[in-house]
């Protein structure tokens, strides 16, 4: 048996189909008591990563790391904002794309959420330096949920 809170719809009695709120229903939620915080805004700036036709075809750097302190890998939402142009991206921010992809993204590990800069030469044929320094600082708004990214959320159903 579980305990919780149920609220009926206006004018209705609490029974199946008449509940407007059930605290036991699983939701995406963020813990407010974590340190470091599980939601916030940071600024990152990618550096001039390089790829070479005769050598390395992918380069990465971790720009920001947030330890999540959870027993599992959490679901995450990340938004990138280039304030000068109000350019706003979900999950991935492209400095450039095509034969060479140059972008910001995120990665969730067993211990942390990483904001990463990735430069990939898809054709393995170029010498190239990332455009990131010319873009300046990019704001990163992140939410780390207490829900696992790759497992079913623990359910505490209200009886």
């Amino acid at each position, binding site marked *: 048996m579980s*305990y919780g809170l149920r609220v009926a719809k206006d004018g209705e009695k609490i029974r199946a189909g008449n509940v407007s709120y059930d605290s036991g229903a699983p939701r995406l939620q963020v813990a*407010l008591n974590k340190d470091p915080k599980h939601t916030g805004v940071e600024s990152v700036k990618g550096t001039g990563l390089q790829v070479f036709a005769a050598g390395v075809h992918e380069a990465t750097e971790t720009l920001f790391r947030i330890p999540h302190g959870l027993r599992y890998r959490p679901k995450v939402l990340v938004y990138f*904002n280039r304030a000068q142009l109000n350019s706003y991206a979900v*999950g991935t921010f492209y400095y450039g794309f095509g034969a060479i992809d140059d972008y910001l993204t995120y990665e969730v590990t067993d211990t942390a959420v990483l904001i990463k800069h990735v430069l990939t030469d898809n054709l393995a044929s170029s010498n190239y330096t990332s455009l990131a320094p010319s873009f300046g600082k990019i704001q990163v708004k992140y939410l780390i949920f*207490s829900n696992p990214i790759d497992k079913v959320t623990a359910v505490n159903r209200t009886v």
Partner: protein
Amino acid sequence: MAKGASIVQQGVSVEDAIDAQKVLDTRWKYFEIYKEVEVSFPTMVDLTSYNFTLYEHRLGFVPFFEVFSITANAHIAKFNTAGGPNVTNLSVIGGIVSDKDRIYFFGLYLNDDGFSKSRVLIRIYNVDAAKEYQAPLVNVKPNRASRKSSIGAKVIQHGDLNVAKSSELSDYTLTTRGKPLAIQRVGVASSDTSTGFVVKVDHNMGTLPIFLAAPIKLDRSIIGALNPDFVPFLATATTSNLTFSGAQAALIGVFSYIIFKELAEVST
């Protein structure tokens, strides 16, 4: 006025709280998870057409959903729109989609799709993606910000007082130390010549918005998956509106968007 319950973050007056300081308001709709299920894709062959069910949800409406590949450690959101999503002929639209009864794959599979034989987690939300919705909004700055306090509310599961000091949200059915994602607005927008291939949505959140979007068929009968890893069109955002447009090509088609209430005070 509707009756119900409102719970705010620790140290905040219920009467004075702005939306970002509320943990629960039963007038709101939350991004509830209807079902999470692990399924496997069968072996799929390049340039071959398929039509098979991944999961029958039988919700009776077209829900937001997402597909996370456990095998590839990334979200999958394939939505083929040969001829554009405004085409009503079902045979030219394919991908991983949901209608009001089931989540399924149909259409042409390409090796580049990469999910043949993959194990995936499908997360289905109890939200009708085809139905417009807008919540009341209170985001005027309060007289004072929330501060740390021992005042709050928790409902422990199973009546086990031993977990009363646990910091894990999953040990409670309700805790003011956790904030669920609440819905501010759900809408369906169409980008075409009449809009200049640009769609602008007012949100008035006072901060850069938390949002997601998925392509939806013109008649709103089927929807593609949400993809938190990437939204395939440009967006610009201010603290009051969100604008969608194309990249090097025009944005053409219909999509369903969801904007969430701000989760926490920006200053804390």
